[in-house]
């Protein structure tokens, strides 16, 4: 009964989305108020219906209702509750339902929170959001019904892939989808602006918070995925340049570019057509990622079960959504008049450079991801592009980007004095050079990339600190006065500085772990000792353990420092039976500026066990940096001007205090 309710709700949502997508657009075009008025209630109704469907599917998973095909294929009664719930989105159909759920959530958010939007713009945005919903609901209803029944009802389910039974991964898809799908709002705003033929500062001010929220969620989602790969795959790697990872990374890169170019539209009324294009492209790459993951055109560890029909459908949808919006862009964008002019050396100039480098970086990732497919299509050659390609192309683009990142925020709008800006960064530069020299001294000339990486990371952190110090006139006025200024700084300034510093911290982490990782890979017998990173690890043997839905072998390592016992590590190898699979649970201890990482493997048959022990210096900085970046996004999101909304209204009511604040930004 409940699954049927869910199924009906999805079908009803499709009809509501059709009405939401078509009628208000006609109303907005012809000025028919009764049609435009449909947009807001339709968006809310569509959300409620999909929420109902989502609850219905979750209920089926939680109650292990194996008469539902999807539950039978992906769940099991012995599974802990958390993974019964996360099983909802651990498969193609359910994850698609999550996709449309978040899409409808964002649409309803615009409908209910967008009171300060001009009616016509809001109506069109909601309508386009509705049309995107139509595409995905069609796929859900006709090709991917999550509520399909099976008969006779099986007694037990097939279980969820044990690799996915992990708290880190349970919440990885929702964050990722909030990111992907959130960019649909920027897309809808861009298409609505093209229909209207108008992009102004107010438009950018509305687009920015949605983009910022999506970007923040995507940052967390990607970091979670990377963290999961690190501790679960048992190899200590954190990024594999896998097609599906790239599919999430490309919208992130473009979303980052969009965040920055929207600032230029907002503050300087410039780069309009470019920003609209970026908004379209960012979401297009989210859609393309969906296609890559679900059509099976590229082989990947993450791929869902492939189905040619779905691939054809999603491709057709891409043609309508991406092809259609880009055609609209070709037609309407020339009409978007640019405003403020600026010198090449200026805040705008720096942001343009940021955009160019980010787009170029996205292109290299795109080429690396799609090249095997294109080569196959053209010549029948089958290749895979590995990490070496990405290291050789992506990294060199990041170096100038990072170098400029610390300088850009210090530059004034319109025209900057490069020498003057650089002179304000001289303390930061001196500190950066000392970090580089210390690194050089400690690791030697052959680790020149490590020196470069440490310098770039430090440069970003010191640059962000300088930015805040400059804005608060630290040490030039009294501390109390600086503190007051710091409190009054716009949150977006704080957010930007925190995010930039966060990237710096992450770069330090990547550099540290790539440059100074050490490993011990050997067969160990009980009593054997190995030395790593100043520690001695004694292998104590293994014991069998029984978990809720697996059996495991647990090894014990005693960690000694200078002969004194400091810690004990217990890595496990877990053997699941439904479906049959083995996973490693690495034991990880933060030690000596990094992680000690131990994995116990198989018995060699005569008392020895394959053990892998790593020391990964500074690896935690990577996740801390990613969290800082997300925190920067959140802080920026609380900025007063995003909460107040339209600048037109603000100009009318602006107090002297506000104007002073505006000048400060």
């Amino acid at each position, binding site marked *: 009964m409940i699954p049927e309710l869910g199924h009906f709700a999805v079908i009803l949502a499709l009809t509501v989305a059709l009405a939401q997508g078509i009628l208000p657009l006609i109303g907005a075009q012809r000025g028919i108020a009764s049609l435009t008025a449909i947009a807001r209630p339709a968006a809310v109704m569509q959300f409620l219906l999909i929420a109902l469907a989502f609850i219905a599917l979750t209920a089926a998973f939680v109650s292990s209702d194996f008469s539902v095909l999807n539950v039978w294929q992906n769940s099991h009664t012995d599974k802990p509750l958390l993974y019964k719930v996360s099983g909802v989105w651990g498969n193609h159909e359910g994850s698609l339902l999550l996709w449309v759920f978040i899409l409808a959530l964002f649409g309803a958010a615009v409908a209910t929170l967008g009171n300060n939007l001009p009616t016509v713009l809001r109506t069109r945005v909601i309508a386009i959001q509705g049309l995107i919903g139509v595409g995905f609901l069609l796929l859900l209803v006709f090709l991917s019904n999550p509520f399909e029944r099976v008969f006779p009802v099986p007694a037990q389910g097939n279980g969820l892939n044990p690799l996915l039974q992990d708290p880190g991964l349970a919440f990885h898809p929702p964050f990722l989808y909030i990111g992907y799908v959130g960019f649909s709002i920027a897309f809808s705003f861009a298409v609505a602006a093209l229909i209207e033929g108008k992009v102004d500062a107010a438009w950018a001010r509305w687009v920015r918070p949605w983009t910022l929220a999506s970007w923040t969620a995507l940052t967390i989602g990607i970091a979670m995925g990377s963290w999961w790969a690190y501790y679960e*795959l*048992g*190899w200590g*790697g954190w990024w594999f340049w896998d097609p599906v990872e790239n599919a999430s990374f490309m919208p992130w890169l473009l979303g980052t570019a969009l965040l920055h170019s929207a600032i230029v539209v907002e503050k300087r009324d410039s780069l309009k*057509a470019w920003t609209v*294009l970026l908004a*379209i*492209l960012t979401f*297009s790459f989210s859609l393309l990622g969906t*296609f890559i993951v679900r*059509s*099976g*055109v590229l*082989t990947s*560890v993450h791929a869902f079960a*492939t189905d*040619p029909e779905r*691939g*054809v459908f999603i*491709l057709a949808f*891409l*043609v309508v959504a*991406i*092809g259609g919006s*880009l*055609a609209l*862009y*070709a*037609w309407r*964008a*020339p009409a978007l008049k640019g405003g403020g002019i600026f010198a090449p050396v200026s805040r705008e100039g720096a942001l343009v450079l940021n955009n160019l480098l980010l787009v170029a970086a996205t292109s290299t990732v795109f080429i690396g991801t*799609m090249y095997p*497919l*294109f080569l*196959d*299509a053209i010549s029948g*050659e*089958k*290749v*895979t592009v*590995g990490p070496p390609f990405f290291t050789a192309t992506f990294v060199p683009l990041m170096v100038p980007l990072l170098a400029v990142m610390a300088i850009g925020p210090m530059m004034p709008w319109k025209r900057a004095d490069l020498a003057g800006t650089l002179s304000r960064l001289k303390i930061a530069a001196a500190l950066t050079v000392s970090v580089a020299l210390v690194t050089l001294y400690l690791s030697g000339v052959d680790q020149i990339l490590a020196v470069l990486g440490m310098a770039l990371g430090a440069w970003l952190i010191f640059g962000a600190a300088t930015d805040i110090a400059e804005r608060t006139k630290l040490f030039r006025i009294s501390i109390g006065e600086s503190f007051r200024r710091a409190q009054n700084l716009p949150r977006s300034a704080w957010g930007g500085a925190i995010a930039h510093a966060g990237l710096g911290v992450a770069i330090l982490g990547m550099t540290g772990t790539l440059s100074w990782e050490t490993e011990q*890979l*050997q*067969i160990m017998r009980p009593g054997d000792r190995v030395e790593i990173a100043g520690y001695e690890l004694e292998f104590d043997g293994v014991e069998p353990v029984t978990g809720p839905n697996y059996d495991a072998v647990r090894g014990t390592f005693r960690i000694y420092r200078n002969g004194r016992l400091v810690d004990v590590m217990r890595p496990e*190898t877990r*053997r699941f039976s439904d479906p*049959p*699979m*083995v*996973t*490693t649970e690495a034991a990880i201890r933060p030690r000596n500026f990094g992680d000690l990482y131990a994995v116990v*493997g*198989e*018995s*060699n*048959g005569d008392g020895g066990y*394959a053990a892998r022990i790593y020391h990964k210096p500074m690896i935690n900085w990577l996740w801390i940096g990613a969290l800082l970046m997300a925190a920067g996004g959140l802080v920026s999101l609380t900025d007063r001007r995003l909460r107040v909304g339209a600048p037109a209204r603000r100009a009318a009511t602006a107090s002297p205090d506000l104007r002073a604040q505006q000048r400060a930004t």
Partner: protein
Amino acid sequence: MRLRYLIPVLGFVVLFIGLAVGLTLKPREIPSALIGKPVPVFDLAPVKGRSIGLSTADLKLGTPVLVNVFASWCVPCRQEHPLFMELARTTDFKIYGLNQRDEPDDAARWLDAFGDPYDRTGADISGRTSIDWGVYGVPETFVVDGNGCIQYKHISVLTREILEEEILPRLRGEKHVPCEG
């Protein structure tokens, strides 16, 4: 309408053609049923530090053989590895290792650390041969008869049950599937 504004949509048209062709290629790229088919044509150098490589001709020497697809980065491979070690110790069946998309050093270290049960190894660094073999994911294990005809394929970790019930009989020439073409 100015031409530069057309660039994005034209770019998408190119992408669309690539994706559309890609969709049609799919069935050929990963053959679903290779049972009863001859092994693909390939010739691979051995994994670093080993001297005998692996090619199509090595699979047509008259006796059935086992081909195991493995990689150092593949965690489940470690799980089934002891079974291959045991098989190599206790039987005379030939076991060949197809090393998929691996760094030469990693593969060599892996075999040194955990033992090398393979009579021949092939380093499929580009992953192309594995695609021709229809490998979905690592590990996979094939039984090939003495004429180079694929008899059986097992996806994911090899278990003792599968080994005893499915693989060993086929290595002894039972349950033989005639080769098409």
